[in-house]
C-alpha cells in the first residue's frame, strides 16, 4: 500500500470522472519562523465527505482558514470550481458558496437561534438600506420568504422549540447544531466543518454524524471535515487527508489511511 494516493483522472473512465469542486494547490502558510502549513495539495470531489486529520498543531485549521479566506497563503492557490479564490475576502468566498463552522463556536450570542439562521441567509437576501427602512413591501416579503427557508432548517435540525431562545442560553451541543444550521442557511455547495463534534458526548456525536451524513446525501453538499474522533472519521468519510507538522503525509480511503505506516508513526510514534 502506498502512503500517498490521489485520484489520477487519466486512469479513470470518462463517465465516472469525478468533478473536482475545490482544489488546494501547494499552499503554504508561515507565521514568522513557524511554518503552519507547507505545500499541501488536495482535491475535494463534488458530493464527497473529505476528512482532514492529524495530531494537534498539524495545520488543519490553518488549512481551513486559507480555504475560507482568513489567511492569505504564502505560496500556492485555492481554486473553487476552476476559479482562483486565493486573494478573495472571506465574505466574497462565502457568497460563492463556501460555508463553515468554527472549532470554538462563533455564534452571535446576543441574538436568537432564528436571527442567527436569518443572518446565515444574508448573502441570499437583497434588501438595501431604503427598502429595509420602508420595510412594508419588498423587504417584508423577502423576510417572509427567507424565514420559510430558515424554518425548513429548524425542522431539519429539530430546533423548533428553541427558535426564539438567545444562543447564549443554549447548551454546548445545541450551539454546535445551531452553528451548523447557520452554515446551511447560506445554501452552500461546500461546507467546512472544524471539529463539529469536539467536546461532545457519545449521543451528541452520533446525532451530529447523522446530520452531517444527511447534509451530504440529501442536500448534496460537499463536506470538508476536521475531526479528532477516528471512529466517526473512518465511518463517514469518503476520503481522508492526514497532516503532520504542516505536511500532508497520507491521503486515501479510510482503510488505506489506517494502514499507512506514515500515519501510524505520526500518531503512535515509531518502535525503537
Amino acid at each position, binding site marked *: 500500500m502506498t502512503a500517498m494516493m490521489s485520484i489520477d483522472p487519466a486512469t479513470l473512465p470518462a463517465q465516472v470522472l469525478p468533478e473536482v469542486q475545490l482544489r488546494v494547490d501547494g499552499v503554504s502558510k508561515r507565521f514568522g519562523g513557524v511554518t503552519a502549513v507547507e505545500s499541501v495539495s488536495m482535491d475535494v470531489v463534488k458530493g464527497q465527505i473529505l476528512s482532514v486529520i492529524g495530531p494537534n498543531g498539524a495545520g488543519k485549521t490553518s488549512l481551513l482558514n486559507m480555504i*475560507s479566506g*482568513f489567511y492569505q497563503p504564502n505560496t500556492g492557490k485555492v481554486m473553487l470550481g476552476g476559479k482562483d479564490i486565493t486573494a478573495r*475576502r*472571506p*465574505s*466574497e468566498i*462565502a*457568497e460563492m458558496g463556501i*460555508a*463553515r463552522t*468554527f472549532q470554538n463556536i*462563533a*455564534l*452571535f*450570542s*446576543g*441574538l436568537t437561534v432564528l*436571527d442567527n439562521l*436569518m*443572518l*446565515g441567509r*444574508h*448573502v441570499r*437576501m437583497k*434588501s*438595501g*438600506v431604503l427598502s*429595509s*427602512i*420602508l*420595510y412594508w413591501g419588498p*423587504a*417584508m416579503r*423577502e*423576510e*417572509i420568504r427567507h*424565514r*420559510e427557508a430558515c*424554518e425548513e432548517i429548524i425542522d431539519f435540525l429539530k430546533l423548533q422549540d428553541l427558535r426564539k431562545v438567545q444562543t447564549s442560553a443554549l447548551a454546548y451541543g445545541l450551539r454546535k447544531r445551531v452553528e451548523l444550521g*447557520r*452554515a446551511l442557511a*447560506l445554501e452552500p455547495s461546500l461546507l467546512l466543518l472544524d471539529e463539529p463534534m469536539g467536546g461532545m458526548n457519545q449521543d451528541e456525536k452520533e446525532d451530529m454524524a447523522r446530520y452531517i451524513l444527511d447534509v451530504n446525501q440529501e442536500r448534496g453538499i460537499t463536506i470538508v471535515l476536521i475531526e479528532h474522533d477516528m471512529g466517526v472519521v473512518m465511518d463517514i468519510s469518503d476520503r481522508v487527508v492526514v497532516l503532520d507538522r504542516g505536511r500532508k503525509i497520507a491521503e486515501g480511503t479510510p482503510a488505506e489511511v489506517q494502514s499507512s505506516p506514515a500515519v501510524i508513526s505520526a500518531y503512535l510514534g515509531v518502535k525503537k
Partner: protein
Amino acid sequence: MFHREAGNFKTTYASDMALFPLPITRWTAAALAVLFIVIVPLVLHEYYLSIFNLVFIAIVGALGLNILVGYTGQISIGHAAFMSVGAYTAANLATKLGLPFWVTLPAGGLMAAFIGTIVGIPSLRIKGTYLAIATLASQLIIEWVINHTPAISGGAAASIQVPRPTLFGIDLKSQSQLYFFLLFFAMLAIVATMNLARSRIGRAFVAIRDQDIAAEIIGINIFRYKLLAFAISSFYAGVCGVLYTYYFGIANYEAFQINVSIDYLAMIIVGGLGSVLGSVLGAIFVTMLPIAIRTVVETFGGYIWDTNALSAVAASMRLVIFGMLIILFLVLEPEGLARLWRNIRNYFRAWPFSY
C-alpha cells in the same frame, strides 16, 4: 405595556414578525399616538411643549448614535460634530440659496453622512478605545474647520441666523407649531430605526458587534457595513443638527461641542444600548434631568444656598448628579432604562402567579 400572552397563536410569519404582534400592544401604540398628537399639545403650556420639542430633537440624535454604538458596536465621541455639519449645511443652503427645509433637511443629513463615512474609515483598522480617540480627534478637527472657515461659519461669530421653516405658507414659530413639526421627524426616526433593526441591514450590524469574524464568514463585508453604519448614524446626527438649527433659528458651533457628544453617549448608555426604546427613554431622561434639577434647586435650594448663587448651584449639581447616574447605571443596570422597563413588564407578565 402590561399584558399576558396566553391564547395568542400566530398563523403567519408576517404576524410573527410584526412590530406590535399583540392586539393590546397595538392599542397601546395607538393610545400613545393619540396622547402625543392630540392631548399633549391641547393641554400643555408652551413652556412644557418646548421641553417636549427638545426631547424630540434629542430622540433623532440618540437613535442615530445608537445605530452606530449600540447596534454596530463602533464607538463615536464625535457625534456632535456631525450634527454641526448638518446644521451649517442647512443654514448655508437656507440663507444663501433660500431653499426650504424639506430640501435643506435631507441635504444636511447627506452632508453629515458623507463626512461621517470619512471619519468612519479608521474603524476598519482600529477598535474600541483607539477608535474613540480617532472620533474625538474628528470632533475637534470638524469644530476647528467650521469655526475657522468664514464661508461655512458665516463670519467671526460663527453663527448663522436661519429663517423659520414654512409649511403650506405658514411660518412655524410658536412652540406648538414646532411641536408637530418635530414630533413628525421623531416618529419618522423611531419607525425607520425599528424597521432597520429588524431587517437584513440591522441584523448585519448586530452580527458585526457580536462576532466580527463570524459576520465575515457568513458573507457580511465588514468594511462596507461599518462604513454604512457610520453613514446612517451621521445622517441621523445631521438631521438632528438641522432640526436643532431650525428650532433655535440659529446655527452655532457652540451648541455642538464635545460635551454634547458626551450627552448623547449618556443618553444611549442610560437608556439602553442597541434598543430603540432605550434611545427614546435616554433622550427623555437626559433632556429632562437638568430641567428637573434646576426646578428642584430653585424651589428648595433657597433654604441651603444663597439665592443669588442658585443658578450656579443648579449648573454644578447637574454635572454631579449626571456623572453619578451614569456610574450607577453602568454598575447596576448596564442595559439601561429599556432593561428596567422589560424587567418590570416581565414581573407583571406572570403576576401574581410568579411561576
